[in-house]
């Protein structure tokens, strides 16, 4: 497929936003049961959720560039019964709304304690909203992944690994940002987030490698024989019916060399997994917040390459019909 940069930015940006919100909310829920110290509502929880919201909004803006008729985008919420894209169109504003409410409740201190257990654990109103937000966030990850995993013709995508990778890669990038953010605003959470970032990064590395290995050994169901219905092992296209390009030649192929594809694969593997982890721990050891932020920036650039590769690697069966200009 031809990687559209609008979609590359959409999926990576909302991944960061969702991950960062999950990180901030994880921090709060640990503190509710007194496993972590409670942080400042405005500085940490409120601002963190607002930054997450910023990433979600940026993703939404990027997505608009993918649409031919963005003024009709509201219609996309109507077919949620059958279309994962429609479900995403509903889930994304739902996440944004809940993150926004979560943020302003922290900002303005609208945080009544609903219930206190005998052990001292507190159920606050923000926790309830945050839980809803976390559920919506996971639903959004599912929708985003399923948009790709549900297209059975694109065999590189049609696997549960696609959904798992969207979930883990997004969460990973959000937690990496949370480490840097905590180092500025809540230094006592840095270690907590760093451990989680490491765990999620390792998990994401395993599942992303699993999908790369799977896609290396993929057996395509369609062939020239099934595309034309002609039973002969030697079929060559002599003409695709036109000399100039068309949507068929532009939208379904990355137009890059095999060498480029190979290089970008290794680049993203390095930029997404080992290098950010190295920078993050180096920043923690030296107590330098900027190095931790650098870890996130490197990882985000790596994720852009990863997402580009994800799209480019998918081989659409329609390409069987468009092989020769003549």
């Amino acid at each position, binding site marked *: *497929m031809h990687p559209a940069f609008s979609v590359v930015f959409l999926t990576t940006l909302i991944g960061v936003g969702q991950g960062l919100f999950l990180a901030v909310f994880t921090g709060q829920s640990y503190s509710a049961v007194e496993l972590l110290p409670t942080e400042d509502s405005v500085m940490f929880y409120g601002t963190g959720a607002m930054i997450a919201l910023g990433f979600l909004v940026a993703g939404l803006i990027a997505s608009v560039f*993918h*649409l*031919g*008729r*963005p003024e*009709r*985008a509201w*219609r*996309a*919420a*109507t*077919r949620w019964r*059958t*279309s*994962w*894209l*429609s479900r995403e*169109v509903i889930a994304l504003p739902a996440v944004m709304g809940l993150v926004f409410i979560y943020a302003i409740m922290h900002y303005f201190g609208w945080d009544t304690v609903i219930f206190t257990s005998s052990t001292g654990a507190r159920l606050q109103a923000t926790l309830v909203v945050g839980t809803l937000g976390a559920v919506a966030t996971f639903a959004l990850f599912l929708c985003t992944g399923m*948009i790709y995993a*549900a*297209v*059975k*013709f*694109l065999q590189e995508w049609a696997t549960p690994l696609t959904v798992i990778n969207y979930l883990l890669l997004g969460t990973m990038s959000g937690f990496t940002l949370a480490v840097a953010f905590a180092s500025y605003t809540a230094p006592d959470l840095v270690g907590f987030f760093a451990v989680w970032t490491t765990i999620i990064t390792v998990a994401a590395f395993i599942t992303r490698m699993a999908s790369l290995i799977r896609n290396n050994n993929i057996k395509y*169901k*369609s062939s020239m024989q*099934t*595309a*034309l*219905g*002609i039973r*002969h092992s*030697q*079929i*060559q*296209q*002599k*003409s*695709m*019916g*036109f*000399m*100039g*390009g*068309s*949507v*068929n030649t532009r*939208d*379904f192929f990355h137009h890059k060399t095999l060498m480029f594809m190979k290089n970008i694969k290794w680049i993203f593997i390095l930029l997404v997994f080992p290098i950010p982890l190295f920078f993050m721990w180096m920043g923690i050891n030296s107590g330098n917040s900027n190095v931790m932020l650098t870890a996130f920036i490197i990882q985000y650039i790596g994720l852009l390459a990863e997402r580009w590769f994800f799209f480019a690697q998918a081989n*659409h*069966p*329609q*390409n069987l*019909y*468009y092989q020769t200009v*003549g």
Partner: protein
Amino acid sequence: MTQLALVIDLNVCVGCHACVTSCKEWNTSGPAGTMCDDNPYGESPTGTFFNRVQTYEVGVFPNTETVHFPKSCLHCEDPPCVPVCPTGASYKRENDGIVLVDYDKCIGCRYCSWACPYGVREIDEHEKVMKKCTLCVDRLYDESLPEAERKPACVMACPTSARLYGDVHDPESEVSVAIRENGGYALMPEWGTKPSNHYLPRRKTRLHIHEDELQRADNPLTKEQREHAAPVEGPILDDTTSW
């Protein structure tokens, strides 16, 4: 239930592209708006087309065969492009099975083009909506046209009658008979899309001549040869005389 569709006879198609041009001509002139056509006489022309004729070579020289292969929307009975549409712009008509796009609802997200394994959906670069073969739905029911012309423009244009049009659910229709009797098949059956359009394969006309047809079993000459006298034993004049 009716399912209108095309049957394309690969044995007859000569690859003249008349269906391509008449399709574009009819559909770009209709009330649904033009199909974009950029740089048509320039270096790299591009534009929206509902129908294309491709050419393939089957076999290895000298045993090759040229196959001209017209390709347009197959109006699948289970169209994968319809459920993925987030707006409901992509739909399949209940009454005749034609798969259409509502140009007023389409947001141009291209998701349906990903979900079509045949690559027959294109975004119109000017109108920014998805377009595809409509089976000339604006001809089929137009009572101002003579009845013989109420069929797709490509079918009207085909000089060799390689394109048949009709209801593939009616077992006695011309298309159903052609599919049944001439080995009609669907493209990429592995995806379960159940395309309504079918293709008829190339058919070889072979002359079968039995040996009996070259040599009469009751040829009187054969009879005579069989009754030649046995060769004479002992020396004959030829053995001793050189003339």
